[in-house]
């Protein structure tokens, strides 16, 4: 992008955006060099301050990512030289990685060399709590500030700062390794990584105040898909997020209330995202190593294919849910399968399946029952079920929606 970008004036917001885009790679590279997360984080922060001073006047350097890493690395070395503990650390670094200390150089060939992959497996190590995994991933890999991470999860900034500090202390004290798991460990270790990205996306989807988390999750999923092109579930997760994202704008009304899939204005779905998501799903099908994310993506791909809700290929969706239920036999999957069966074999078949499920504290269970009962003309029972669903719904928008009897207009 070099010359054109350099000629253009940069403002602070733009510097911030570019920094956020690039900082994960720099932090990851510097952790490898210095073996210390705090040193890497502080150095990249200092480089950011320098960029804010320089870039608006001098323009964007030809390789902003390389510039950040090199500047941060030099700052870190200067700082460590001033401290006695730092000098110790530097001498260790020199011993441990001779000739390996130029993170500004282009990365070595092959996806496995990327430091960000090591970093995400460290952030999502099973010895850390899910909360810590999410916070570390957004902070270190996503380049969000502690304040932004705190706001995303409705936590006070000092609480989030403490959570991050504790997690980093544990990584250091317990020596949580900075490496890519061996092939045989990968299924076990990939699960929390994918779960963290999915959780970040869903946090953005359900808290309207933080829509920025959705693109952030997609960015993380894209990074993972680039780094692990051979992992079908990584591709599956990316496709699932892209296809879900294609419908996000039509999922809520201007007043924030929810619009059911069947009632959405399908012309507003994002065609480019659908195309990209469906292409990934097709590649997954050809590879034929199904997993839960891939199947959910495939279900969403079938929905995206239908120009109207009536044209939905429900038997295809039931078949996919059968497959998903075999892989992940949870009551929530069984509930969604029952909904699809309701579209093929009618409400009473679906209700029989739904009534067998033990999901009394899950509001979509009651909302589904309510809808099926209403379709069967059992209005009194339907009203009671809507009421129960509304009482359990986590957001105001969902509560209002359910109190109005799901609008009953399917």
């Amino acid at each position, binding site marked *: 992008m070099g010359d054109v970008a350099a000629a253009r004036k940069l403002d602070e917001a733009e510097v911030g955006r570019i920094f956020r885009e690039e900082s994960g790679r720099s932090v990851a590279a510097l952790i490898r060099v210095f073996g210390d997360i705090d040193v890497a984080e502080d150095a990249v922060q200092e480089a950011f301050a320098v960029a804010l001073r320089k870039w608006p006047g001098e323009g964007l350097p030809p390789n902003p990512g390389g510039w950040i890493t090199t500047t941060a690395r030099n700052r870190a070395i200067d700082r460590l030289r001033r401290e006695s503990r730092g000098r110790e650390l530097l001498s260790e670094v020199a011993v441990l990685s001779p000739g390996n200390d130029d993170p500004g150089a282009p990365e070595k060939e092959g996806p496995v060399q990327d430091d960000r992959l090591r970093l995400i497996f460290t952030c999502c*190590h099973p*010895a850390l709590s899910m909360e810590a995994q999410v916070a570390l991933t957004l902070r270190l890999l996503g380049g969000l500030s502690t304040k932004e991470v705190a706001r995303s999860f409705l936590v006070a900034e000092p609480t989030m700062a403490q959570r991050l500090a504790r997690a980093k202390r544990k990584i250091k*004290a*317990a*020596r*949580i*390794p900075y490496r890519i798991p061996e092939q045989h460990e990968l299924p076990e270790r990939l699960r929390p990584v994918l779960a963290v990205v999915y959780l970040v996306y869903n946090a953005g989807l359900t808290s309207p105040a933080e829509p920025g988390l959705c693109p952030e999750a997609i960015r993380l999923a894209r990074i993972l898909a680039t780094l692990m092109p051979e992992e079908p579930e990584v591709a599956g997760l990316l496709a699932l997020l892209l296809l879900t994202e294609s419908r996000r704008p039509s999922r809520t009304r201007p007043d924030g209330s929810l619009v059911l899939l069947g009632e959405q204005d399908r012309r507003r779905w994002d065609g480019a995202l659908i195309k990209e998501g469906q292409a990934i799903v097709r590649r997954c099908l050809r590879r034929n190593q199904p997993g839960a994310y891939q199947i959910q993506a495939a279900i969403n791909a079938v929905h995206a294919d239908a120009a109207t809700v009536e044209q939905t290929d429900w038997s295809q969706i039931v078949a996919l849910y059968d497959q998903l239920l075999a892989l992940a036999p949870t009551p929530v999957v069984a509930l969604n399968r029952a909904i699809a069966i309701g579209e093929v074999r009618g409400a009473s078949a679906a209700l029989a399946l739904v009534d067998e499920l033990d999901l009394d504290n899950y509001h979509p269970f009651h909302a589904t029952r309510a809808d099926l009962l209403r379709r069967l003309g059992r209005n009194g029972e339907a009203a009671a079920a809507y009421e129960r669903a509304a009482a359990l719904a986590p957001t105001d928008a969902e509560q209002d929606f359910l109190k109005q009897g799901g609008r009953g207009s399917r």
Partner: protein
Amino acid sequence: MTYYLLSVHSVEGEARDPMTEEEMRQFMERVGVLEQEMKSAGAWVFGGALHDPDTATVARVSDNEVLTTDGPFAESKEHLGGFYIIEAEDLDAALAWASKTTAAVSKPIEVRPFRHVSEA
């Protein structure tokens, strides 16, 4: 390399059916195999099983005098049944030993890193 404490946690009165002689023999054999493996891998530093907490004595300073009291420091249902101190490359390596230990003794294992001298 880091030192880790692998502590074996027991709950009083739980699963305390006396082992048959055969069960005891198999238990000792599993533990013996595990310890031998730790030693030949260079992970072993020290370890062993402890007597019950009612054999414990606590010493503490009070008004410049050392007082000893009979019994464990904390009256609780859970207590330390034994421990290993191992040396391992990183937490993954330590957790691999913890997995083998919990499989051998059928009790939960807590893994805790020792501070380095420089961190003290």
